[in-house]
């Protein structure tokens, strides 16, 4: 081999790779069932077949993404034990409960998804069909809920005492209700819904940008931009709570994100910029008082700086860029979806412009980038801990050989799955455009 074999580095890289790939499909998997249910519900309420068709087409594409989400989820589930056996042995004693409940939620979703997909034509009544979607959406949201609890526990472990290396006084419920849980769960769910809405809006915007003027795409775009806007606003609110949570429980994570070194009052928020050789921030955009407001809701409040944290326990400083990108994209999406909604209400002509539709098309990819950035920030910001305050990453990793080879094996797998899923999805919808499907339905009903 050309490098020194270090299972810790390779385990980290492989876990990071699996998760970075999985969350793309997982986010879609959590959010889309709700969007399908919304479209189906509006279709029933308005008695508009366009919305029913929306639900149908989304569901068809959803199956492909679910498949990749399921298999990569299985991969990360097993990798937790394969790559982090020491960590799982310790954490399993305290946090197995939500992990276990997650599989129940997943099970529930899987059963109803199978039923939903295979009973399209069995029920005349569309309402019955909607009823089948509800458990799918609930199952999807609950699996995100439980798995995020596990992650929250790793950030703020509680519900046990460590006495001479042994775990005592274990309380599984207290471990679940850890301080990071409320903001993390709320943030993960709202961003998953938001991202899924923007991804679906992107598809419609892309069709309109390409010159297709069908009212079906306009309805889809308007509906999803509206839903996207609502969840963006929710995300901004939750994001603010998250900042306050960090200031209290994980000050070093917030300080690293903000390059806030000295503890001080009236702390400014720094956007972008870079660090010079002396560790001074250059070229950053400074917003006075903003960090104090984000951290404590008070412009003059004192914010703890990174210098208070021992050097070997500090997160890497590059998390600043992840944080900034995430926040910038979030703000932009909130603005653009709000603007679009307003413009439609006012009847402004800009919404028909090709260039504007291109801007809207970018929302989906941007939202997905923000998801990745947010997770990178959350995970690198917890370094060097795997279980903050209890276990370092280097102590949790496997001692096994061949982790490097496994990294290549899985990298190859994700390249194949990623490419194949994109090809299959494109083919699926190109072969069967909306106009064709609407015509087929009309024909079936004898309207021709």
């Amino acid at each position, binding site marked *: 081999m050309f490098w020194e074999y270090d299972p810790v580095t390779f385990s980290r890289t492989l876990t990071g790779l699996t998760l970075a790939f999985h969350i793309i499909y997982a986010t879609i998997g959590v959010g889309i069932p709700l969007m399908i249910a919304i479209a189906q519900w509006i279709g029933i309420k308005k008695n508009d077949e366009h919305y029913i068709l929306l639900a149908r087409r989304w569901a068809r594409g959803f*199956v*492909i993404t*679910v*498949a990749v989400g*399921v*298999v*990569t989820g*299985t*991969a990360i*589930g097993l*990798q*937790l*034990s*394969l*790559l*982090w056996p020491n960590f*799982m*042995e*310790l*954490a*399993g004693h305290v946090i*197995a*409960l939500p*992990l*276990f*409940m*997650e*599989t*129940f939620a997943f*099970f*529930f979703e*899987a*059963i*109803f*998804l*199978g*039923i939903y997909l*295979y*009973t399209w*034509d*069995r029920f005349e009544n569309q309402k019955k069909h909607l009823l089948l979607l509800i*458990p799918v959406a609930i199952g999807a949201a609950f699996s995100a809920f439980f798995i995020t609890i596990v992650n929250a526990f790793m950030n703020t472990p509680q519900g046990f005492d460590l006495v001479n290396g042994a*775990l005592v006084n*274990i309380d*599984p419920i207290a471990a679940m209700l850890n301080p990071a849980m409320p903001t993390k769960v709320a943030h993960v769910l709202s961003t998953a819904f938001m991202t899924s809405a923007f991804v679906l809006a992107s598809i419609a915007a892309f069709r309109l940008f390409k010159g297709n003027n069908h009212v079906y795409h306009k309805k889809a775009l308007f509906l999803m931009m509206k839903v996207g806007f609502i969840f963006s606003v929710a995300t901004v609110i939750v994001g603010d709570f998250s900042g306050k949570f960090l200031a209290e429980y994980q000050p070093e994570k917030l300080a690293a994100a903000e390059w806030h070194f000295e503890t001080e009052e009236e702390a400014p928020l720094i956007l972008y910029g870079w660090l010079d050789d002396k560790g001074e921030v250059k070229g950053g955009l400074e917003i006075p008082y903003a960090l104090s407001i984000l951290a404590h809701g008070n412009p003059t409040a004192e914010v703890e700086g990174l210098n208070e944290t021992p050097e070997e326990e500090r997160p890497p400083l590059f998390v600043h860029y992840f944080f900034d990108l995430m926040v910038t994209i979030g703000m932009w999406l909130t603005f653009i979806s709000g603007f679009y909604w307003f413009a439609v209400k006012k009847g402004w002509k800009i919404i028909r412009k090709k260039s504007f539709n291109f801007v809207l098309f970018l929302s989906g990819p941007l939202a997905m980038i923000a998801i990745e950035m947010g997770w990178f920030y959350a995970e690198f910001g917890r370094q060097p801990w795997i279980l903050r305050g209890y276990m370092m990453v280097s102590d949790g990793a*496997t*001692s*096994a050989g*061949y*982790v490097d*080879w*496994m990294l290549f094996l*899985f990298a190859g*797998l994700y390249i194949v*799955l990623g490419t194949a*899923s994109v090809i*299959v*999805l494109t*083919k*699926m919808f190109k072969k069967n455009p909306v106009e064709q499907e609407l015509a087929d339905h009309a024909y079936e009903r004898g309207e021709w």
Partner: protein
Amino acid sequence: MDLEIIGISVLWLFLFGYIIIASIDFGAGFFSAYSELTKTRHILHHIIQRYLSPVWEVTNVFLVFFFVGMVGFFPSSAYYYGTVLLVPVSIGIVLIAIRGSYYAFQTYGAKDSKLYIFLYGVAGLLIPASLSIVLTVSEGGFVDIVNDQPVLLYEELFFSPLTWSIVILSIVSVLYISATFLTAYADVAKDEAAKNLLRKYALAWSGPTALAAGLIVLQMRAHNIERFENIMDLWWIFALSGVFFVITVALLLMRKYYSTAFWSLVIQFALAFFGYGISHYPYLMYPYLTIYDGFTNEAMATALIVAFIAGFALLIPSLFLLARLFLFNKKYVKGGK
């Protein structure tokens, strides 16, 4: 009864569930590919697709359920098995990933591709082979403790006749289970052509399955005499399993009561599987880890059992609904809506 025993019994039951439904799934993939080669695809394709489509995701959950439950009830197993099984289980995950996702791609998206069908069929046989390594490792003799860390002895594992006997058994029994189930399914569907072909497959694979099982007992004797004696103490369970094997084959030969034949097969495998499990007691990984020193704390065990019962109150009616809509719905099975 000890919580430890309840825990391992429930997990063992889940593993058994996975083995049966995954076998049907993996074997069906193989028969699909084989039918492509022998130009009998038109006979089998429909019946296999009909069964697999609504349940493929559920099959996968059974596996997830087993290993999450295992780590939950026996956290130390994450340490021992996690450390030593990195390579074989990773290969298994990659195969499952390719197989699972491509099944969806194929069914809902892309056109038929011969290469894909071939890969799909082969992957189905390699998955049981890669996962059955777990059972081999649990027998002891393949793991050493070096510097306080468990290490897998790849060479010993690869050259052990026991390894290969278990691999062979896993493959032939996958084909046997799958063919028998699909015969019964085709019978309900009144698909005579598929039924006759699958019945032939079932009979063809019954012999190798019985042979491979016998071979393992012999290997076990050479590998670990103590484990062999444990198995012999439970001879009557295995004998009973043999009786059900004979019943299944007899019914298949008589060309009737196919559903009964399948349930008799399930009982046969259940007896053998639980007999094997009991003979393993109390070890999770011989000789390092027993169910007693690997068990979780009392608070977590109680919480997990409560979650388990609550979860099942939700799942059983749902699974029942799924089965009623697709498996035991004659109209659906025959090709109706």
